[in-house]
């Protein structure tokens, strides 16, 4: 459970501008993607390119597949999502829980460099919708994430159906995922870091007006994913 001691510990440390969860999540995902990409390469030696290879694996994640991998790295992409959408750091953990649920539910699907960005923007957006008092709408996430509004809506619905609408993450499950992510980091020689566990307080004030996207300037990311 979320212990108060742990929480104050975090507060007493100098707070880096980028939440540690982003660093850890980037690390874990980059490793996962590298492994899966390698797997696909092995499977499709005689063929050329990933797009052919991806046809051989499960179709569940097809809507998330781009034609080619976006040039922006995973850490930069997460940082971008965090910076402009201002979602709470917990959304990154919960987003990861969703992606993990999804690949366990559809074991034939692989997170690859071709789909990881779309999976991330969708999962973090849904997590923010579920968690945050104030969140940006799909249109804003689309702009930040470099996809069209219509595509992101479609991805959202695909995502929810793939998850079978299992979007509840209990505090226990949340904690166990934090633990898992931290362990991954240590096991792989990364620096020992802990994730910000700021899942409290819990609110759903509906009176808070939705922020208009015009109040924040977001350099429009050119369609990084075509």
């Amino acid at each position, binding site marked *: 459970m979320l212990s108060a001691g742990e929480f104050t510990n975090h507060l007493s440390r100098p707070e880096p501008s980028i939440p540690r969860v982003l660093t850890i999540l980037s690390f874990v995902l980059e490793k996962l993607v590298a492994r899966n990409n390698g797997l696909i390469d092995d499977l499709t030696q005689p063929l050329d390119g990933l797009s052919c290879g991806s046809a051989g694996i499960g179709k569940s994640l097809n809507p998330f597949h781009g034609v080619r991998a976006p040039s922006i790295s995973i850490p930069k992409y997460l940082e971008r999502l965090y910076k402009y959408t201002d979602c709470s750091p917990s959304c990154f953990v919960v987003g990861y*829980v969703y992606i*993990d*649920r999804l*690949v*366990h*539910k559809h074991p034939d699907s692989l997170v690859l460099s071709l789909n990881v960005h779309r999976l991330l923007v969708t999962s973090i*957006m*849904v997590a*923010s*919708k*579920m*968690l*945050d*008092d*104030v*969140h940006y*709408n*799909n*249109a804003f996430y689309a702009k930040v994430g470099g996809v069209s*509004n*219509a595509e*992101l*809506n*479609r991805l*959202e*619905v*695909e995502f*929810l*159906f*793939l998850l*079978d*609408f*299992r*979007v*509840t*993450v*209990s*505090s*226990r*499950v*949340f*904690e*166990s*995922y934090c633990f*898992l992510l931290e362990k991954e980091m240590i096991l792989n020689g990364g620096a020992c870091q802990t994730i910000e566990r700021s*899942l409290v*307080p*819990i*609110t*759903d*004030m*509906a*009176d*808070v*007006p*939705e922020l208009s996207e015009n109040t924040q300037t977001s350099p429009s990311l050119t369609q990084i994913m075509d």
Partner: protein
Amino acid sequence: MAIAAPGQLNLNEVPSWGSRGVDCFEKLEQIGEGTYGQVYMAKEIKTGEIVALKKIRMDNEREGFPITAIREIKILKKLHHDNVIKLKEIVTSPGPEKDEQGRPDGNKYKGGIYMVFEYMDHDLTGLADRPGMRFSVPQIKCYMRQLLTGLHYCHVNQVLHRDIKGSNLLIDNEGNLKLADFGLARSFSNDHNANLTNRVITLWYRPPELLLGATKYGPAVDMWSVGCIFAELLHGKPIFPGKDEPEQLNKIFELCGAPDEVNWPGVTKIPWYNNFKPTRPMKRRLREVFRHFDRHALELLERMLTLDPSQRISAKDALDAEYFWTDPLPCDPKSLPKYESSHEFQTKKKRQQQRQHEENAKRQKVQHPQQHRIPPNQQSGQAHTQIRPGPNQPIHGTQPVVAGGPSHHYVKPRGPSGGANRYQAGGNPGGGYSHPNRGGQGGGGGYSSGPYPAQGRGAPFGSSGLPGAGPRGGGSGYGVGGPNYPQNGPYGGSGSGSGRGSNMMGGNRNQQYGWQQ
């Protein structure tokens, strides 16, 4: 405590929803308007089974999938009870769009997403509004007990319904009552430390703590609504038909007395207390106003319409009230009469047509006053038609509605249409109250054991069979998976957000009741 490995919890899932199209169903007619879309009666073509299809509005592109819909689906997926509406599956329909080559673009979600529910013939408001309808005492007890049983199940599973009202209580022709429309529902934690929005629950059924701006609340909010419905069933019409928040509070205070630190410790610290505190002393008049109710009904009502939410009766305790265990006992749902389909949506439509008919027929004459039963609409953007007589008429609310005659083929007036009250308004028809007959109450631990269970554990509670049957208790436990982490998202995003409670209509102010000064 053992912690499930990540992903381990995902394996025992039912087959994926959304694989079937809406073309598996044939739409028959529109029967309602939900929080975020229309509801249709439909027939599954393969099996002939009648279902209700609730369309999820996807027309707000910028917002994407409505958060209220995500919540309703998420919550209904884990609630399985005879008194909670069953979500059977979700189906999609292909969109009309084509790609550049003129092929369907495969974007099935553009077309629509429908939630498929079991079909229910009536809702409580629609049923009560039938001309000449008069509920018997055992019938009222039967509905109330089912309502409380379903709500107790929700509360044990840490779900607040937050929109209990007659039109959300569905009734089938077997007499079963089920809670529906979980579009405003959310999970809660028992510590009440969360800040929740107070802009929930249809105004007439909204408890004083929400009207006073409380953001920390719990299951007691639903119990207030239940009290309002109970009183409405006994009284024959809504008891707090306020047109806006201040008037709503005033109506409550007039009946239940003004809150103070004595009857509601802490009330003066609730955010808007000072804005709304009554200017004159008001004492509780509930017993006096409803003195014609039977003793046990009044006793239970007193405990439901208690101002202080911490003293308000819980669903579990209400099920233990004398009221349900004295003659006449609640009847078996199956023994209730069968009625032709009636939904509030349809009765409203019918009355609307009837009103037009009347207006055309005798534009210059004095109209018959009509019943007002429609609470002020709570959602912006889907204005329900308010039925009300012309302005400035003396209204006493109980005149029959039959001036023009029902114009819908599916409504046959039953019984005397001129009766002032459709409900059993009082008296003591059964007698025998002094010999409480509590068959079977002692057995099995039933409802009365202990507080809500710890997170993730099932409560002892008979989950099989109808609540109307037999002794209390029963052994089987239910319990949904793990603890429910209270989700907190605003649902302001989905277009129905801001307006709850603010879209007040005039007109209901004409209602006068004997007990209001």
